[in-house]
């Protein structure tokens, strides 16, 4: 643990890669397992080719209580003993490593393709494929009365593709297996190869509804490696844009949850109000989803005072319009009967598997990057962490409603007293041989970008971890024991990103 702390890695503060401890496989494994047992959380676990035959495994860990980050690494060849049996948080990361780097985690209990693509971060001298993208062995429950329902990848609504396979006994779900990867675009490879003017556009396109979230984390990592310092004004406007994105999505999803239980009034009004928040993002950035605003070094353009006044006026009005609709949703008995007790995530599962964002906060696990690893404007303006305890659909909806109220307060406060400063600072060459981790609390939870530079200061490895990467497991954990007809409602209360997971 001491080595993890002594490294001095923080959110958006780069360290020399040479300072990251390089242990033998068993030592590395022990370090990670011990740290997680002591309350650290696995933020990212990735592989990058080191020599022609070896791959360096790099684990990024976070101590949320102390706001510290740590890193550990090791060199492996064809295989290594999997961490998952002793550290379940690693299960999806190890499938990812097996798929991307063709390194086999021996003893992994659920070694199946994650995104179903060929290795794209394999050591140059190796040709093996560990996971055949065309072979996916589904889990099956046997029994006369058990039936299997497959949904997707093509769905009835205008949503992203993903395959859900239910093992059901009548209306009760026994097991849900989620197969993703249909949206795999090779985002990490693109971020490592294209030039920086294009990379920022790629970062904005990782998940269409988390533009500010991802581009903010991308810029945070790049700025840390370039030692670029943003002005307070740029930090504040980034914070405003991030919270507007959260507002638009939370409000839209509360409406969608109402729609899934056929509660028309809340669905209709929240649906309209979502548009109002998107229009505010449009005002700030020129795009309803916030594209084109955040750039390395700060902002592409400033937020003029007249615009700030206009935004405050609109937000004050929206606040008065939101409250009666939320009351309608949270105080209607017929709605409560549908939301309570459905799709509960046990708190232990949340701690053990490392879920993030509103999903974790709804099980009383107060994880919030803005609070635990503060950065930018959030070092000065604290947004209270909203939690609930039941872990069910209702708790997730409630957490999101409280976050709506707190984000509204935050944005209004920031707009009332925007600090001075140039919108954009210089952001030059990246320092060679360094590692930077940028965490950002997107509306779904923790977005992590891990960037490692090579000896020439080029990007050697760019790892993206979307909150959906952690939380898809939460949906699979929450569903067994529920009614199959409640799946869409559960799914909506998580509203995870397919593109963010598939990269």
């Amino acid at each position: 643990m001491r080595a993890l702390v002594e490294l001095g890695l923080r959110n958006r503060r780069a360290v020399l890669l040479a300072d990251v401890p390089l242990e033998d496989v068993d030592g590395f494994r022990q370090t990670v397992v011990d740290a997680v047992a002591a309350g650290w959380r696995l933020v990212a676990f990735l592989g990058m080719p080191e020599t022609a035959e070896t791959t360096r495994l790099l684990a990024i860990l976070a101590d949320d209580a102390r706001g510290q980050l740590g890193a550990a690494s090791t060199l492996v060849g064809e295989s290594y003993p999997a961490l998952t049996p002793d550290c379940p948080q690693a299960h999806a990361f190890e499938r990812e490593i097996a798929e991307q780097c063709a390194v086999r985690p021996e003893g992994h209990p659920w070694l199946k393709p994650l995104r179903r693509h060929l290795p794209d971060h394999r050591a140059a001298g190796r040709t093996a494929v560990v996971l055949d993208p065309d072979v996916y062995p589904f889990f099956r429950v046997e029994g006369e009365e058990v039936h299997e329902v497959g949904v997707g990848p093509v769905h009835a609504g205008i949503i992203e593709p993903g395959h859900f396979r239910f093992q059901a006994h009548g209306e009760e779900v026994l097991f849900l297996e989620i197969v993703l990867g249909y949206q795999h675009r090779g985002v990490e490879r693109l971020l490592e190869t294209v030039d920086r003017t294009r990379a920022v556009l790629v970062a904005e396109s990782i998940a269409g509804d988390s533009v500010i979230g991802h581009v903010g984390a991308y810029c945070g990592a790049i700025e840390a490696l370039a030692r670029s310092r943003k002005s307070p004004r740029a930090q504040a406007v980034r914070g405003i844009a991030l919270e507007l994105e959260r507002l638009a999505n939370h409000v839209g999803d509360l409406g969608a949850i109402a729609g899934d239980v056929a509660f028309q009034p809340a669905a209709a009004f929240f649906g309209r109000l979502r548009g109002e928040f998107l229009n505010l993002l449009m005002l700030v950035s020129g795009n309803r989803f916030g594209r084109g605003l955040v750039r390395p070094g700060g902002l592409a353009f400033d937020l003029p005072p007249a615009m700030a006044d206009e935004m405050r006026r609109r937000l004050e009005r929206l606040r008065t319009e939101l409250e009666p609709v939320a009351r309608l949703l949270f105080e209607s008995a017929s709605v409560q009967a549908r939301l309570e007790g459905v799709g509960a995530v046990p708190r232990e599962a949340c701690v053990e598997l490392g879920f993030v964002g509103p999903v974790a906060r709804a099980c009383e696990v107060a994880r919030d990057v803005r609070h635990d690893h503060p950065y930018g404007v959030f070092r000065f303006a604290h947004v209270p962490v909203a939690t609930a305890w039941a872990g069910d659909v209702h708790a997730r909806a409630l957490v999101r409603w409280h976050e709506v109220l707190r984000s509204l307060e935050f944005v209004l406060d920031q707009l009332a007293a925007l600090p001075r400063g140039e919108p954009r600072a210089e952001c030059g060459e990246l320092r060679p041989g360094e590692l930077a981790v940028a965490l950002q609390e997107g509306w779904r939870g923790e977005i992590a970008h891990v960037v490692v530079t090579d000896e020439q200061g080029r990007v050697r490895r760019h790892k993206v971890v979307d909150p959906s990467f952690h939380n898809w497991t939460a949906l699979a954990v929450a569903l067994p024991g529920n009614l199959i007809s409640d799946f869409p409602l559960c799914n909506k209360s998580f509203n995870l990103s397919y593109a963010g997971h598939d990269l």
Partner: protein
Amino acid sequence: MGLVSWTALAALAAVLLTAPLLPGIVVRTKSFLTGRRGAPVLQLYYDLWKLFRKGTVYSTTTTWVFRAAPVVVLATLLTAALFLPLDGRAAPVHFAGDLLAFAGLLALGRFALVLGGLDTGSSFEGMGASREVTFASFAEPALFLCFIALVLATGDLSLSDMLGAPLAAVWPRAAAALTLVGASLFVLLLAENSRVPVDDPATHLELTMIHEVIVLDHGGPDLALIQLGGALKLAIFGALVVGVLVPRAGLGVAAAIAALLVGLGVVAVLVGVVESVMARLRLTRVPQLLVGAAALALFAVILLLR
């Protein structure tokens, strides 16, 4: 069996022509109450016109059962409508015990629809079929309890009398019981026509559907027959509700038909209001609602036996 009554046939024609208006009224009511503009009231007519001009695609797993389903559904509903005294006097077809034939025809239509769904071999449609018949086994006893109450009230075994002049005569004495029957029938109307709180006709989520999911594979004219059947079923149940709650025996033929059509419109508005103020029930709670409807009818029976 009585002589064919031409005024009753005219009433049936009027109901057939206006039935597709009812879903439009429901949608407009919902839109109005939730601050939206909503689809035109005539939307179902446009949809039917569009669908009837389309071709159909049949899955290779389906057989004649699948193709027969829409025809049987509409035919059974049309035949069932013949037993209703829509002009407030007598039905085109009536005989003692025709209420059994009426309920049997509705069941036959459901049977055909469910078989058609199962014929596709799709797991969704199997689930929908299972839900449809499960809930029907709760809805049918409730319907029969309503009929028993009406038989007890009027002393007749024909729908024409149960909903015609004899009913109007007993209304002053049996108002409480008949109101309960009307309420029970309204709940059955919501359940049988896959409306909120039982089903959600507006959803696109296959896993939550009951009725809609069984007809997912039907297209073109087949789907048009099913949608027309859906509108007709809403009108039939609406006519039962209106027939029990608003006796029209004393009115002239034209006035009785007009009163029925206005009554159907009011029922459609009520359905829209219900859909605007409450969420759908969890699927396992639906039988409780239907048992509740049966209990209402049972109280009516007890009141009439007193």
